[in-house]
């Protein structure tokens, strides 16, 4: 049995997760998103990544992944994007699509400033 806090929303349900082979039982979640999170957390933990990248003209632009990214890929993504200088993107524009074949995109969240 594994204790886990759901990070899907600010409520932060404290869940108890039981793994029996491929069968995962979740208790303590107040909505179905909790069960989905718990399952993902056991099989393939992922996080939404947020960061700031260097833009042209010494500006900075805030970015995020449009979906949670597998945790092991996070440092690599950050080390790559923090070393580069990017052109300015419109908020919402895709900066990197399909990161490492995961289907996750990096998008701009705010204007360059």
């Amino acid at each position, binding site marked *: 049995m594994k204790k886990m806090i759901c990070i899907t929303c600010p409520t932060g349900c404290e869940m108890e997760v039981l793994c029996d082979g491929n069968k995962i039982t979740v208790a303590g979640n107040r909505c179905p998103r909790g069960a989905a999170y718990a399952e993902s957390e056991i099989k393939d933990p992922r996080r939404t990544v947020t960061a*700031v990248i260097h833009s042209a003209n010494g500006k900075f632009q805030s970015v995020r992944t449009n979906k949670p990214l597998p945790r092991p890929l996070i*440092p690599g993504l*950050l*080390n790559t994007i923090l070393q580069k200088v990017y052109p300015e993107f419109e908020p919402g524009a895709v900066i990197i699509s399909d990161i490492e074949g995961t289907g996750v995109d990096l998008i701009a969240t705010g204007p360059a400033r």
Partner: protein
Amino acid sequence: MKQYDVVVIGAGATGASIAWRLSHYDLQVALVDRCADASFGVSKANSGIVHGGFHHSADSTLKAKLELEGNEMFDALQKELDFEFTRCGILVVAYSDEELPQLQKLYERGVANKVPGIEMCDRPRLLELEPKLTDAAVAGFFVPRGGVIEPYGYVFSLVESAELNGVEFWRNFQVVSAEKEGDFRTLTAADGRKVQARFVVNAAGLYADEVSRICGGEEFEIRPRKGEEYLLDRTSPGRPSKVIFPVPTPCSKGMLVIPTAGGTTMIGPSATMVDDKEENSTTQPEREIIFEHSKKMVKGICERDLVAAFSGLRPVLPGNEDFFIARSEKASDLIQAAGIQSPGLTASPAIGVYVKNILADCGIELKEKSAPRKILPPKNRARELTPEELDKLHADEKLASRIICRCEFISEAEIVAAVRRGHVTLDGVKFRTRAGMGRCQGGFCAPKIMQIISRESGIPMEELTKRGPGSELLVGKLGSLEVK
């Protein structure tokens, strides 16, 4: 190598005042300081009191004589140099009957020193002068000519005015050797820069002993006596209208409640002998003692209003309660101005004159400059200007109406002016303009101020410091550290 008639070592209140006084004469003068900016040593943490001349006897001490003279010089100085200064008056208050004999003694000394307007007060009169005194106040005396000053603002103004009138100011110049060759002494800084001087004035504060030794002057030791101060928000109900002194103890004038010239309230200082000349920490026990004492003195003081805590060191010359200001008997080109602790700030304008006269006695020719004196440009403090005045100013100076520090209401133009005058550290800008000195302590404006300093000075952000080398504020740009 640059040659000067006089090099003043130490850009605190004493050295700045001497250099400023010398800037009136046809002389080549340099002011050097080990720190990144003027006043960063002893003066920065000064309580900012313009003392009333009753603590020491004017017949037997030089310090009382200079204190009384200095006090009277501030009005003219403020008019020319535009620093924060108010003659709010000083009240010395006895909080128990046991203190009355000492209070009487102090009052009589004031009378003997011919302190103008000194007045013995019973409790009703005390409360009339200061309604915020606590119920414990028994009696006291009033010194109407006492006041408060922004110590760093005063020092910066002296230095800037001196610079404008020909004095050269060398920052980060820590004198490590002083070789005498013929008519000149070569002062070498830790980083290898050199200047030459016919006469050296030792106004090096805590390090006056070291400077004297390097120059072959008298052997003495300066010992630091630490004082912690606590600054309360400008809305604190504990702000009195006058400086409130307790009856002093043998080693200190006591812990005060000060309505600072900048509009805040300051309580302290404590007085503890320490061994280390760089020991500037604050401590919990001292804070508790200072709050406890000041709450007994003035109503409305509360820890909740605490905005900043800091400490400073007084340069004590053990065994000599007086200032040591004289031509050295061992090195004839050295003028000593050492052991300048309280009331050094009050005395400083008079010290400037006194040292100038010593230099004249040394044979330096003092010819007043024939060219008219250059006056510092107006400070144009946003917080002091009416909306109409500020709007008018905006026509010529767009940045005058962009407010960067919201707590103290400081404009970008004020910060830019400070940077252009050489104040390129965060503390330098803070002490010069008050930006970042308010209740948020720079929480909102520090990043903006750092950007302005970098833009105006050309110093990259990652090289900016709080108060000089070693106090770098940032370590690099995003991406310069590896994410693990």
